[in-house]
């Protein structure tokens, strides 16, 4: 088979000394970029583009993709250790990862997140290598109506996220959606709710909101409780998952990896929706749904498997159609252009060495990630043993520099602080904050595609296209089922009284 021989050539190339060093360097830098709140994978990739001018095109791409993969994993480290998701997609990892740390088991969360990331990344890559052609043709058929249906499906995960507090969860999600409408309307070009503040023309940036709502509100909460003289975890004894524990998670990891790859293909939808939906599904099929949100290893595995495998999915439209599936891949297109390569189907014919070198390097990068992550985990777990009196001021410092770095703007720093205070107040009154992030991520996709679909096909288009109708029906069911279950349970409890 031509594909296998090409892939063999690619593997032979990446197993050289220089490519291995390049990948290792990329993975190491990616982990750091991902773990630093404020440096997203796309920024990590973008910031390094200028350094790759002097490299050969294959090596440059290999380096950038290694950073991209590793940064997606790196986000989970701070999510687990200090509840500060480094990337939007690792918000979901924090749901269970941070509770595990609070229980004194950060090693369990870090171990599961590393292994699920690696397995997810490899599955995503394999799907990319063997099925990119047909999947790309399928992706082209997505109409705005289907994007809208996907966004609605993503929103319905709030119903099960919220549990008993579902009204509050929905209020938070709706508020996130409303916040997302601030700025210049991408469809009509009219500026909305900006009150003449030019920083608001692009709306609130996601990263400062993320840092504020998660990291800062968590510190405020712990400060309020008055308990900050200790450290999070006793140093010395650390628990890591056993091989048996990983084996138990195999179904969750496999399922989330497939879902992550498929959702990753939707240009623009990406890692965050993949993580939310996969977490939701894992909770529904789990034998222990009650553990979700309180330190479930399945929850961590579902989130990380999905967000890492979405990298493979996002690369499908990029390599086969030259269409970026995420912000990071958009930067990769720029990098290809600088090296005088035009991404797209022609590239497979004109430069197969580059394409297959890249695909082979993806496999290797995941393996190197596993190795670096394994030793690294022993190092950054120490973060949890830093006394809180030292840790808290440092987290403030990290948050401030991180939110400034997003757009080099003070406005974002102030917004981060405001979101922190807001998140603290909400959490005092039992509102979950994650739905706000989900709303801010999905708002744009939902709105623009809703209007685009109507412009293109009228109001009925959502119900006349079978794929869109099917997704909306699934969404409606996934919205209704947890509410009905919750109602039944509360009735049973009342009867018991």
């Amino acid at each position: 088979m031509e594909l296998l021989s090409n892939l063999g050539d690619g593997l032979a190339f990446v197993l050289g000394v220089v490519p291995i060093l390049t990948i290792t360097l990329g993975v190491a830098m990616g982990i750091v970029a991902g773990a630093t709140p404020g440096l997203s994978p796309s920024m990590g990739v973008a910031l390094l583009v200028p350094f790759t001018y002097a490299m050969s095109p294959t090596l440059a791409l290999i380096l950038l993709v290694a950073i991209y993969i590793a940064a997606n994993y790196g986000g989970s480290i701070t999510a687990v250790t200090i509840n500060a998701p480094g990337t939007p997609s690792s918000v979901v990892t924090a749901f269970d990862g941070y509770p595990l740390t609070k229980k004194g088991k950060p090693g369990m969360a870090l171990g599961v997140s590393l292994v699920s990331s690696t397995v997810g990344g490899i599955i995503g890559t394999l799907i990319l290598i063997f099925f990119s052609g047909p999947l790309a043709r399928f992706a082209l058929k997505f109409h705005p109506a289907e994007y809208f249906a996907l966004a609605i499906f993503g929103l319905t995960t709030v119903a099960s996220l919220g549990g008993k507090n579902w009204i509050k969860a929905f209020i938070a999600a709706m508020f996130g959606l409303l916040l997302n409408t601030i700025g210049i309307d991408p469809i009509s070009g009219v500026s909305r709710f900006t009150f003449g503040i030019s920083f608001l023309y692009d709306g609130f940036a996601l990263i400062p909101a993320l840092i504020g709502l998660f990291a800062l509100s968590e510190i405020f909460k712990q400060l309020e409780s008055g308990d900050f003289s200790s450290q999070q975890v006793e140093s010395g004894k650390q628990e890591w998952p056993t091989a048996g524990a990983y084996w138990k998670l195999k179904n969750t990891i496999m399922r989330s990896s497939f879902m992550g790859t498929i959702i990753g293909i939707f240009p623009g939808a990406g890692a965050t929706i993949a993580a939310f939906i996969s977490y939701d599904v894992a909770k529904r099929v789990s034998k222990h749904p009650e553990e979700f949100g309180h330190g479930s290893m399945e929850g961590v595995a579902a989130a990380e498997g999905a967000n890492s495998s979405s990298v493979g999915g996002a690369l499908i439209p990029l390599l086969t159609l030259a269409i970026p599936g995420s912000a990071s891949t958009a930067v990769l297109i720029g990098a290809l252009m600088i090296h005088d390569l035009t991404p797209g189907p022609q590239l497979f014919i004109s430069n197969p060495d580059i394409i297959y070198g890249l695909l082979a390097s993806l496999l290797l990068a995941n393996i190197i990630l596993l190795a670096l992550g394994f030793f690294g985990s022993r190092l950054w777990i120490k973060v949890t043993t830093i006394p809180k009196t030292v840790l808290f001021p440092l987290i403030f410092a990290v948050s401030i520099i991180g939110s400034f770095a997003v757009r080099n703007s003070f406005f974002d720093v102030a917004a981060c602080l405001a979101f922190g205070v807001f998140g603290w107040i909400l959490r005092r009154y039992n509102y979950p904050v994650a739905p706000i992030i989900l709303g801010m991520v999905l708002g744009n996709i939902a709105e623009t595609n809703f209007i685009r679909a109507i412009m293109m096909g009228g109001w009925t288009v959502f119900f006349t296209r079978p794929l869109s109708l099917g997704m909306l029906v699934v969404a409606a069911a996934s919205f209704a089922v947890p509410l009905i279950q919750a109602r039944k349970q509360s009735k049973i409890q009342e009867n018991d009284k």
Partner: protein
Amino acid sequence: MKQVLNDAKVKFTLRALGLVMLILAFLLLVPSAEAAFPEKPIKIVVYTGPGGLIDISARKFAGIAAKYTDVNFVVENKPGAGGIVALKKVIQAPANGYNLYACTKSNIAKFVQVGGNDYVDALSWVAMLMADPECIITNRQMPIHQWADVLENARQNPGEQNWVGPAAGGLDHVTALKIWDKYGIEAKWIPFKSGGKALAALLGEQGIAYVGNPRDALGNPDLFIAAVSSPQRLEAFPDVPTFTELGMTDLENEFMWRGFALKKGTPPEVIEWYDELFKKVSADQEWRDFWAKGGIDVAYVAEAEFYTLVSEDAKVFEYYLKKSDILPGDAVGFMAKMASGTTFSILAIILVCLWLSGSYMVHMSQYSAILGRVLVIGFFLIVSILFLLQSMNFPSSSAVGPAAVPRLWIFMLVPLNLLLLFKTFRNNEAVAETGPRVDIVLSFIGFLVIYLFAMQIFGYFLSTFAFIIAGLYYLGYRKWRNTFIIAGVWILFSYLIFYKTLYVPLPLGMLFENLF
């Protein structure tokens, strides 16, 4: 330990302080005598994130310019609001030539929408360095892909054709409007988040034509360039007909340009210095080769002519944006008047005051748990009302205008909150997760606010150093030696990683920036 700090600690503290003083003194004593321009690195302010075409242009320019001048060019990304954020950075700095604005024609569209001609006139348009013609791209797999067929189809189905492309009100949209206008046809503009996503829609046969750069069609054989708006055929695309050849003489020169501008009022000798440099860079072989590969024309248009071009562009944008209702019309009706201007601000202030005084009452009251919950609900309701009033102000030319979706969220937010309010009063249990030390939280918030203000004056490094030390002290950490090491290591880390390696332009503070 509380009473007396031992000798070693005192010594260390003194040493650390001494070191800081020394650095300060050194920085202050660096001579700042008058010298010819340029005497320090020049910032190129880029209005997008890293990786876009304008960013690549700026970085490439910096690289080539290094051949001709000793001064360093540093690229600073200030993304946001289609260039307004970067523009403000440039026009708020002194007009000394040290902030070079990397601009494109798309900026003009945004300037017109936000600030009219004021923004165009706030800059000296120093040089246009690149121009690439606009073109129409179609899908070769669709039966209608030749320009004549597209036109024919548009005439048969007026207003039914879907044209895809990037954001509404941008250059490509206005070019499409102009093409429709000149041919007297009607079609729909379906905007996508990026050109790439619009091309995906074109390949997915959801649209009939795409407006953009000829380079966008490279790499995918299904993409077909139907017509290009240039006086002659392009060297890189010899098979593509121009509009003139296709019988439309009014569309021979629609192009995207990229160039540089400085703040208005920059001294003429500085502009002369730039003129020299731009001339040399435009003539540079490496520079020309780099852009020729992508089919981008290297041009050089100097100040006077460039300004004429920009003001022409501004007029065209204004005309077409008004025509397509993107520039807001005059507000009508009582509600719209209510929602606009001062009335709105006063209303907003009153509501916020009410909410704040409510919060204070909660803090003081014995019913604080339930009142607090009610206040959070009240906050969401207030925001909903304010947003609803604002949305009365939006133009509503089509069935699903810009107000539709925000109102949809508001109409879901309000009943949910009312339902919650009802539930809160019905089962009156205290569910708030409150702790005993609200005072610590409030003082920390105060610290952070002071820290942010201090950063503007004393710069990031000094104020962060002080903040970390103060924070550790306030939380009861008393190991002085460690405190200084922690703060010092953080400063070093943020300097080396963020400031030096990642080029994050951390503020140095007004004190320093004005001194040097």
